[in-house]
């Protein structure tokens, strides 16, 4: 076996998001050079705070994508999460006051939506791409029904609001919550049958089936977990804005999928993982904040994001490039 330093480094870091980390470091260096204020503790805490909710989303999304599926229902499920959370905690619409117990309830609701997506994919054999678009539509309808015909429900539960606005050891509480969920995701990915089978199914569904693995069950579970993460993210957005909204996740679908891809989780499945995606989220967050700190005109931000996405993915995937490789 090749024992050069480089080869040993390659083996040791196999499956780790090294290219994404390098990309993150480079982007940070460039931005910090333009706007030194970027490296202040306060700003770093802000970047992490802003990354917290997308990070929670990508934990769930990663498992779905690892299996080669995709979940485009993020924004719709977040809307249900936001509205139901707002109506379950103390608010100005009704007399419910579940406090933090609203979170598990909201996650169950999101899980059920994920379950429906998963069933459409595994039982009706509808490609996840479309099944989840349809579920996104259904979810946004549910959110509208919850919204009814009065003003946006305002959250008055201080504990629930403190979840995203209060700080602990210099970081917002939601940052810590996201950290816990990311760690949980990593444990699931590394130590559970579900997590390992996500790689197996993404590697080859055929081999998985022939090995007696109930592929449908695990795929279903991935959608359920993704639904739970998205609805939790919706609830946390409600906490952050202190209102329930039918559009709390506008633009987050683009952001999270771009993050997952930039992190190096490939859309055909089998490679990447939770950590990759979280680093992708940080890259996207750093770029958005960096552009404000540098003072890039709003007109160019969209273009820059697109170009960065292309360049980053090209760089991350460059080593995979070879003749006759098939990339869809």
């Amino acid at each position: 076996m090749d024992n050069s330093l480089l080869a040993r480094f390659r083996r040791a870091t196999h499956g780790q998001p090294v290219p994404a980390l390098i990309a993150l470091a480079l982007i940070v260096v460039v931005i910090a050079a333009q706007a030194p204020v970027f490296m202040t503790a306060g700003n770093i805490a802000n970047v992490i705070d802003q990354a917290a909710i997308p990070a929670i989303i990508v934990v769930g999304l990663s498992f779905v994508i690892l299996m080669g599926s995709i979940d485009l229902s993020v924004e719709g499920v977040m809307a249900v999460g936001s509205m139901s959370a707002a109506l379950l905690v103390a608010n100005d619409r009704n007399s419910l006051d579940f406090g933090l117990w609203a979170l598990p309830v909201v996650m169950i609701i999101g899980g059920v939506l994920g379950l429906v997506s998963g069933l459409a994919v595994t039982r009706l054999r509808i490609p996840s791409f479309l099944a989840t678009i349809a579920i996104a539509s259904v979810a946004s309808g549910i959110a509208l029904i919850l919204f009814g015909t009065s003003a946006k429900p305002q959250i008055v539960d201080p504990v629930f609001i403190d979840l995203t606005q209060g700080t602990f050891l210099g970081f917002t509480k939601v940052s810590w919550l996201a950290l816990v969920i990311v760690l949980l995701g990593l444990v699931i990915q590394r130590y559970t049958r579900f997590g390992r089978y996500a790689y197996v199914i993404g590697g080859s569904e055929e081999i998985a089936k022939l090995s007696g693995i109930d592929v449908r069950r695990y795929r279903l579970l991935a959608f359920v977990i993704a639904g739970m993460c998205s609805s939790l993210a919706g609830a946390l957005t409600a906490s952050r804005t202190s209102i329930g909204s039918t559009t709390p996740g506008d633009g987050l679908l683009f952001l999270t999928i771009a993050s997952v891809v930039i992190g190096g989780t490939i859309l055909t499945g089998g490679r990447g993982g939770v950590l990759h995606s979280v680093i992708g989220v940080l890259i996207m967050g750093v770029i958005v904040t960096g552009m404000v700190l540098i003072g890039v005109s709003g007109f160019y931000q969209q273009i820059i994001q697109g170009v960065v996405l292309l360049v980053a993915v090209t760089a991350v995937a460059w080593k995979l490039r070879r003749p006759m490789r098939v990339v869809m």
Partner: protein
Amino acid sequence: MSAAEPTVAQTSTEAPALRLTDVSKSFGVVNALTKVSLEIRPREVVGLIGENGAGKSSLLKILSGNQTADSGTMELRGRPVTFSSISQAMSNGVAMVYQEQSLLPNVSVAENILLGNERGAVRDGFYRWKQMHRTAQRHLDEVKSGVSPSDITDTLPFAQRQMVEVAKALATGDGSPYDPVILLDEPTSVLESGDIETLFSVIRRVKEHASIVFVSHRLEEVLEICDRVYVMRDGEVVAEVDPAEADVDQLFRLMVGRDLTSGYFREDLSTEPTPDVRLAIESLTGPGFSDVSLGINRGEIVSILGVQDSGRENLGRVLFGALPAAHGSVRIDGERVGLRSTRDAVARGIGYLPSERKIDGAIMGMSVADNMTLAHPDVVSTLGVMRSRRVREVADEWIRRLAIKTSGPAAEMVNLSGGNQQKVVLAKWMLAPDLRVLILDTPTRGLDVGAKSEVYAILHGLAAKGVSIILLADSLEEGIYVSHRVITMADGKVTGEFTSRPGNRPSRTSLIERML
């Protein structure tokens, strides 16, 4: 292992581990199995042979719970069963290694070995990596492989991956308290001879506590390792043979229902090449090989032999434009070949048959006719528009000429057996209006003897028409007997060149010497 389990006293040696009675299975109009009855006894190796499409894989799929029979009964250790899923079969000690088995490239060796069969290594849904690595290590030790269980599979060289496959086969039968039944569907078709020996020694060892079904097209192997052999033909079991009292010719006769009259390699059809050089390769260098110079005459069959990573495969790919050449030149009939894309090669009259039929050769989702005409649409189209009738006629013609077993030109590739798929891919090049050079990468891998023999006949026929053939042979014998000349490669260099004519064949040993 199972012997240690107290619940199972496997004393009733006489009860067959598995018994099938009158099992039938059809796919639409194709009767894959017709009233098959057979039994697999404890602690024996049962051979299963038959031509491509005879129904071997279908039978194994039913035994392993992958498919259900249309009718008939199955008894497991004396009790009637129906497996409704693979995992059910596995938990009852019946496990299968598939013909197209491959390992998952993206997970560790240990996970691959114990996939779907983790037992104690996963408790309550949680992995216990130490135990998993320990169990996997045990199976790796059994095959004497130096691979570490924590290695990621796609970082391993090909040869090591093959041993992991074997280790996995062993582990697969390990999941039940009973003596396992292990179904091996053509495990040797992708193995090199050294690895085959290892596999056989492993089989002999495992046989002490297991029943094994062994499918192979290499009849010598079957005679060597099996205790009993069932011969299948057209979905039926036509004979049960004792290997001690049979020879290859006899097995062949039983399989195809006729005599192997004119010799397996069809040397009778071999013709003399004309003396003019058709393909001239000059100091060609590419990924994995360097400085290859070679001239091939019109109508000449040249086989290239080499072990894994000898560079011969990539030489073939570079010649076809599928991999970039670093430098060097290739000429056909004096004209230089572009080598920049497969298109350049095809335009110059080069055809290529890839080794991985399912990945690179056949387009499974398309019809037989579409597959055949894909490379040379001009043959069946006017001004770029396909003429459906002509497509059908051409396909029908080649189906007839190559004796392809299929329902017709519109049949989807995925429904053909391996050998017949290979013939379709061959036909793709044969209908070229001006085929000059055909490169074949292990074209007979996984084909039955009858089909192999037919492929050799086709090659001789092409050579007789002046096509020059480069054959990356699947076995030494194939290389020696089918070709006019044998080239050996090792470590990316040409190491030897031997003329090979009737009465003047190079010896196995002299070839092996040059290949290492």
